[in-house]
């Protein structure tokens, strides 16, 4: 099956007064139709910039973009702004973290929802309105026929995010990019929204790229997970493998530094020392090496590339340690030995 979205060796560099920010530094991934890819990383890891670039939202005289982004057989990086406008909100839709600033405060949500359809399709106002009511109902807004004439401020945060999802789905997109869609929401509302995204995906067959800093969120919704650090993907695996047999020291660090509900209470968190590097002057060798307790002299000089853990495996890791070393180190960590 041909992938719906294929990103290859994507680089996004921004020229600033302080130097060139290597926000995204050569990443590759693909998303199959109907699949969910979770992209996990901290602030500044490049997770949002890479997805915004797919939509053509980082184009600027100050940015250098290279690589290829192929969506449904079309090259999006070389597409004109005119062509991109036809794709955005139609074939690819995006939802953002803050649902309040993504909605226009001055217009009723019905008008904003209808605009989403009428921009791309030749439909009557009445048809667009029917579609808006239908989508509002689908995302669980009670009394959609009445609420369509409400303003954004009349909705709660969770309800606004539902409206954003309804808007994103107005044109039956093939791909939905969700950038921290639940970060601004309370935990019970977050659970509802994640459930909704999952349900819609099953019913409508939309592929989803879920961008988040929260491993718990991707654990709930993603089929595959890519972990980003300093503008690169450092590990990519299916969800089960990533949680059961992670192979990158940064992924280990993340897993060990997050408190969980199901571990013993006296289980002590092991933080990752230091902090993420500057994207202008990255460390030589592996970008993670200054914070990595397993770093070797080689990781200070060799910049590791993303490679399969075994020939033909879908589990990809960018680390200079050998697979045997990584496997035994992780086994030691799980077994309670702490070589750190």
């Amino acid at each position, binding site marked *: 099956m041909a992938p719906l979205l294929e990103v290859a060796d994507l680089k996004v560099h921004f020229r600033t007064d302080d130097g060139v920010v290597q926000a995204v530094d050569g990443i590759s991934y693909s998303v199959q139709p109907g699949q969910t890819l979770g992209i996990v990383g*901290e*602030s500044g890891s490049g997770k949002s910039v890479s997805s915004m670039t797919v939509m053509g939202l980082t184009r600027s005289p100050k940015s250098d973009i290279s690589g290829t982004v192929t969506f449904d057989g079309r090259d999006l990086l070389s597409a004109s702004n005119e062509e991109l406008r036809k794709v955005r909100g139609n074939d690819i839709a995006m939802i953002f973290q803050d649902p309040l600033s993504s909605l226009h405060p001055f217009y009723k949500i019905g008008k904003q929802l209808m605009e989403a359809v009428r921009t791309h399709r030749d439909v009557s106002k009445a048809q667009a309105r029917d579609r808006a009511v239908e989508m509002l109902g689908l995302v669980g807004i009670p009394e959609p026929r009445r609420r369509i004439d409400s303003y954004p401020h009349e909705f709660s945060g969770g309800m606004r995010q539902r409206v954003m999802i309804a808007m994103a789905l107005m044109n039956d997109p093939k791909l939905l990019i969700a950038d921290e869609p639940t970060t601004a929401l*309370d*935990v*019970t*509302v*977050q*659970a509802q929204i*994640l459930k909704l995204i999952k349900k819609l995906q099953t019913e409508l067959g939309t592929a989803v790229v879920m961008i988040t*800093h*929260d*491993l*718990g*969120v991707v*654990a*709930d919704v993603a089929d595959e997970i890519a972990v980003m650090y300093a503008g690169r993907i450092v590990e990519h695996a299916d*969800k*089960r493998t990533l*949680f059961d047999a992670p192979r990158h020291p940064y992924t280990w*660090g*993340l897993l*060990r*530094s*997050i*408190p*969980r*509900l*199901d571990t013993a*209470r006296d289980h*002590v*968190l*092991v*933080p*990752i*020392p230091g*902090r*993420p590097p500057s994207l202008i002057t990255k460390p030589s060798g592996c970008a993670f090496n200054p914070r990595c307790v397993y770093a070797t002299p080689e990781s200070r000089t060799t910049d590791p590339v993303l490679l399969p853990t075994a020939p033909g495996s879908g589990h990809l890791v960018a680390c200079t340690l050998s697979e045997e070393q990584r496997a035994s180190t992780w086994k030691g960590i799980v077994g309670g030995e702490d070589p750190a």
Partner: protein
Amino acid sequence: MTALIEVRDLVKEFPIRGEMFTRRGAGTVRAVGGVSFDVMEGETFGLVGESGCGKSTTARLMTRLLDPTSGTINFRGTDIASLSRKQLKPVRREMQMIFQDPYSSLNPRKTVGSIIAEPFLIHEVEKDEKARKTRVQSLMETVGLNPEHYNRLPHEFSGGQRQRIGIARAIALEPKLIVADEPVSALDVSIQAQVLNLLRDLQRDMGLTLVFIAHDLSVVRYMCDRVAVMYAGEIVELGESDQLYTAPTHEYTKQLLAAVPGQSTH
């Protein structure tokens, strides 16, 4: 174990502003609707709930950054709920706060050294400048900052380091009680654990009593001995961490726990 602070029937109502120029005092909103709890000496007590549940207001009432509408706050034998600003000054030495946002809670124009030294100046202890500098630098060391960075400004530090500055300031006077309001929620995932472990170590080493407020249930469980769950201005459940997390009794607690993401793996 004795209680360090006993809160009884604490209420806070805020006036609702009417439309401009028209109705004044359109009524009140009850942010905290009569909560009662004890915080034991040396324990970490968690307040957990969603936005708007009144947990931050409760924290600010306990430290008397806000005036309660009614109720009592018995801190080491004195009801501090109705004390005047002047009467509160000696009490403030004993209780300090750590805030969520390490950017807005530090004066951007002051050096780290003078930010951490401020409690000494306000409470007129460690008056000798040299001795004060030594104290401040040892505090910086305690919280994992480089004492040589004494003369730097807050903007030169990352979020996690700024939170350490806030912690150093809070422990400067060796208070009995620290109230930490969402101290890690503005930090990156890989930095959160550093700050959580620092707070745990300080709590153990200094015999601190810690009130820890957060919306993240896993973080609260990691930190706290006992936890109170707040909903709509009231405590709906209060219990030992282990019990509350394994056998919640209140329907809302159950909902909260079920909503924590990531439980499907492992």
